[in-house]
């Protein structure tokens, strides 16, 4: 397979760089982005060719920035797009889908998409050690995929992460370091680590390549809808990169001829009120996010106070005609239960954020009830059980006795937790 990447390009000044592990422009510190030869890609891709390939993220490999075949995470992606009629009824809308990366392989979050690209790239660049700054899901994914690839890993997280996300990192043999501080402190430290050690840090010096992996989430949505884009997509925002990459994915598909009509999808971003730098900036009419020094929310995977892509996330929401909202911890927990009880999908807290924000945007009239909506679920509820442990009902415990059970049935011991 030929490589369609021309190099890297600064998103601010357009300065070109060769393919190398570098995330920012030397002249203005702007983010670097992968620069593709779309005309060449258009020549070689078509729907039939892609549909013959296995259903995973690499079926779109011409639009992903690796040389040759992927060497890490060859089975990542290909997650279900669920038609969510029961949830639609609960929300009072007509056409609703859930893109479910809670079952992404191997570590149950959309992060496997970005990590497979980043670690394939790390190998191309010859790194023997990789790492990341993470709020948990990325830690799990880097640890697992590095183990499978035979790479050493150093992973940095805030010290107060959910226990499940800690265990799900150490189990793979990663060197995990907890940092006494916020995610932003961890992130800043990792930039300094990337400067000092010759490692492939997936979301620092490998970030231009890493971030491209998220596009596969958007490619799959479009293909699963029959090679077209929906009218509305609601996505969680942590660093603010994903919503931009979904938008980019839709437009790339059009550019290379895989979808016929120019995308008109409105993109909405979701945050927790306890850490809402991007939605606060958007709602205040600013073109930039408003940094939050001390995030405080149960949605720890979204607790980034100073998101790297805040500026671009606001731009995407505004330019597509979408919007952004934030919700309380109580609304997040309620939405997690609602998704579980209508669609049988146990999403992590970030999924609760996305669904609760969707509900809010529908109630505000920003998303019309008769149009097509896709909700992005990016992580699995098994990793954030603490967040709802006190919200779900206590279950009955009885003797193995039929009359005891009859008493439970009659007693109506279940107390509804949904408001």
């Amino acid at each position, binding site marked *: 397979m030929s490589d369609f990447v021309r190099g890297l390009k600064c998103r601010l000044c357009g300065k070109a760089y060769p393919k190398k592990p570098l995330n920012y422009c030397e*002249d*203005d*510190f702007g983010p670097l982005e992968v620069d593709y030869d779309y005309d060449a890609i258009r020549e070689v891709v078509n729907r039939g060719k892609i549909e013959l390939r296995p259903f995973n993220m690499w079926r779109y490999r011409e639009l992903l920035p690796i040389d040759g075949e992927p060497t890490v995470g060859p089975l990542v992606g290909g997650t279900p797009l669920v038609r969510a009629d029961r949830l639609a009824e609960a929300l009072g809308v007509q056409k609703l889908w859930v893109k479910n990366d809670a079952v992404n392989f191997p570590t149950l979050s959309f992060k496997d998409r970005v990590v497979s690209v980043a670690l394939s790239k790390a190998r191309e660049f010859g790194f023997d050690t990789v790492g990341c700054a993470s709020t948990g899901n990325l830690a799990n994914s880097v640890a697992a995929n590095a183990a499978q690839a035979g790479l050493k890993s150093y992973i940095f997280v805030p010290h107060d992460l959910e226990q499940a996300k800690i265990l799900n990192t150490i189990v793979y043999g990663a060197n995990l370091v907890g940092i006494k501080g916020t995610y932003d402190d961890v992130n800043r430290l*990792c*930039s300094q680590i990337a*400067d000092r050690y010759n490692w492939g840090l997936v979301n*620092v010096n490998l970030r231009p390549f890493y971030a491209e992996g998220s596009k596969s989430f958007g490619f799959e949505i479009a293909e699963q809808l029959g090679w077209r884009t929906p009218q509305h997509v609601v996505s969680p925002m942590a660093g603010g990169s994903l919503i931009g990459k979904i938008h980019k994915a839709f437009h790339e598909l059009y550019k290379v001829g895989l979808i016929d009509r120019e995308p008109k999808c409105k993109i909405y971003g979701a945050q927790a009120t306890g850490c809402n730098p991007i939605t606060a900036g958007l709602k205040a009419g600013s073109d930039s996010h408003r*940094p939050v020094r001390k995030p405080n929310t149960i949605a720890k995977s979204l607790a980034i106070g100073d998101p*790297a892509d805040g500026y671009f996330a606001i731009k995407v929401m505004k330019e597509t005609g979408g919007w952004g909202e934030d919700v309380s911890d109580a609304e997040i927990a309620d939405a997690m239960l609602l998704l579980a009880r209508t669609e049988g999908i146990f999403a992590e807290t970030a999924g609760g954020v996305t669904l609760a924000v969707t509900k809010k945007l529908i109630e505000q009239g920003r998303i019309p009830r008769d149009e097509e909506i896709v909700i992005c679920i990016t992580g699995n509820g098994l990793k954030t059980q603490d967040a709802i442990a006190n919200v779900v009902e206590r279950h009955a415990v009885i003797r193995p006795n039929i009359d005891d059970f009859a008493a439970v049935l009659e007693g109506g011991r279940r107390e509804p937790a949904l408001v």
Partner: protein
Amino acid sequence: MPIKVQIPQAMRQHADNQASVDLAGASVKEVLDNLGAKFPNIVGRIFENGQLRRFVNIYLNDEDIRYLDNLQSATKDGDVLSIIPAVAGV
């Protein structure tokens, strides 16, 4: 004892290839002005129209200066000032 300014790798070519420079100054602004006076090619890379560029973060002893007093944050001998690209993270 002066203030130690840490230079990110991609900018060191404009600072005699040094990883850090010792400078004087009573505020972040003064220290960075002194850095610019010593290495003029750095000024335009950090500042645009007198403001810090959007994707440049400055830390004073591990705290982002936006949570202190921005460029006016007071500096004292022995402080460490780090210039760090903002483009990283999840």
